[in-house]
């Protein structure tokens, strides 16, 4: 079916980036994979609506981030997740293991509250504007601004950013 072909192409094209974003926010490979996999199941269930969006990847990114935030609030064990089978967890290094040159960065990021972490990743990895981040997180741009400010302050406090660094 054309629908399945379109979905498969979209899945293949967007999975790597969305996985990396999820990994950066959640900080755990298995949880990141779970969040993206779960989001894609929901994407398939609403494929016509998702595919007709102006920016389908942005739409799915929002689903992934909300999967993570929601799971953090309620715990993965209590979330309704479509999983007919529990696949063996694929082991993937967290980005923290790869950081050599920026030794204090990932530990500092992982210390951030999850929403602050999401703001940092969406702002500095996904390169989204405050307004776009607000749309992803379902909050106001002002809240994004304050979360970003708090996150940067926390990173400075942990020595991952220099005082007075540009924002």
């Amino acid at each position, binding site marked *: 079916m054309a629908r399945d072909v379109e979905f498969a192409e979209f899945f*293949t094209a967007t999975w790597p980036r969305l*996985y*990396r974003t999820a990994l950066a926010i959640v900080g755990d490979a298995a949880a990141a994979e779970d969040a993206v996999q779960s989001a894609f199941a929901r994407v398939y269930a609403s494929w016509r609506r998702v595919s007709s969006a102006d920016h*389908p990847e942005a739409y799915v990114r929002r689903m992934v981030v*909300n999967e993570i935030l929601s799971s953090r609030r309620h715990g993965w064990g209590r979330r309704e997740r*479509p*999983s007919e089978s529990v*696949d063996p967890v694929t082991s993937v290094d967290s980005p923290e293991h*790869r950081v050599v040159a920026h030794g204090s960065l990932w530990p500092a990021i992982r210390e951030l509250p999850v929403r602050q972490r999401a703001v940092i990743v969406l702002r500095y990895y996904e390169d989204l504007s405050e307004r776009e981040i607000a749309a992803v997180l379902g909050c106001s741009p002002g809240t994004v601004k304050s979360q970003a400010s708090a996150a940067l302050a926390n990173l400075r406090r942990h020595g991952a950013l220099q005082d007075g*660094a540009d924002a």
Partner: protein
Amino acid sequence: MSTTDLRRALEADLSAVVPPPGDLARATREGRRIRRRRRATAATAAVVAAAAVTVVAVQVTGGTTVRDPHPVAPLGRLDFSEGLRAYAAPGAEIHLGGRTFPASRMQFLDTDATATPYGVLFYDAGVPRLLGESGEVTDLEPGADTSSSHFTSKVDSQGPLVAYGVVRDGQPTVTVRNLATDEVVGRHDISRDTVIDGLDAGVVLLRTPDGTTTWDSRTDAVQELAGRETRVADVRNGVILYDGSAPDGAAAAAYRLVKGAVDAQLTYDGQHVLDWSSVLQPTEPGGEPVRLEQGPAQRGALGFWAVDTDGSVLVATVTHRYPHYDVFDCEVPAGNCVKLGPLVARHGDPMFIGADM
């Protein structure tokens, strides 16, 4: 490190991560399950759970389904004067006729429901029943066979008619019933794989794997409407909204044909298309769109819509923070909206019972 360095570091470190291969098969398999569950939940659960009731489990013995004669306890009076206003947060609460019920039992019946001005039509073991404004359930076909057949049902926007499938004496039939008088308008034999795609002015649109036909319940006339490449999304007031190839059968001449998405809906007057946006596009060239006061205007934005039984449009939109929605009832074509209340949908998308797109 500056924020510029932060940006570079994130890009460099994350680019170095080799993502595991995504499981496409699992995503599609689970996606299909979610769709099935949405359909079943929107229909079944809603009714049964809405009732906050005692639903006695259907027993299947040797191929014969045995129903309890009183599966749903009376709810007390409901108010359908402003439409059914039937919506739900899966696993949490159901709103129906101005009242709220806990959604504690959502899995008992496997059936589809249809919102009508006279109540929610649902199937109990293949037999159609109506949860009416009195809060009580009545059998629409007391003599029908119990069945595992999975029929659909449709409501007519031009009269108090509803079309549903039922098995009588072993023969599947589509029946059109006048809910105002509780009289059968007509019956027509169908195959078990027939889907009721629409009902307009007493004419039923029936789809089989071979194509779509019309059956006029008043004259019993049957005509070809479209081949197998056509899917009728909706029919209202002489307008057919279709996806795929344009209907080209003899019956098509009686309708104004409008191409659209298969999960879109027409307004009751057939003048506008509701298609996942609070801007309803006109079906006639030169027509003006309807702009609802509430809900996102751009398609693809987060929101949910349905045409209610009084012809208004129900909208669930995130006004504060996901998954906190507000639900509105919006007049068409004026576009003005009345807030019905908040809805927190933590366990699935908001649902409009018996009227989901």
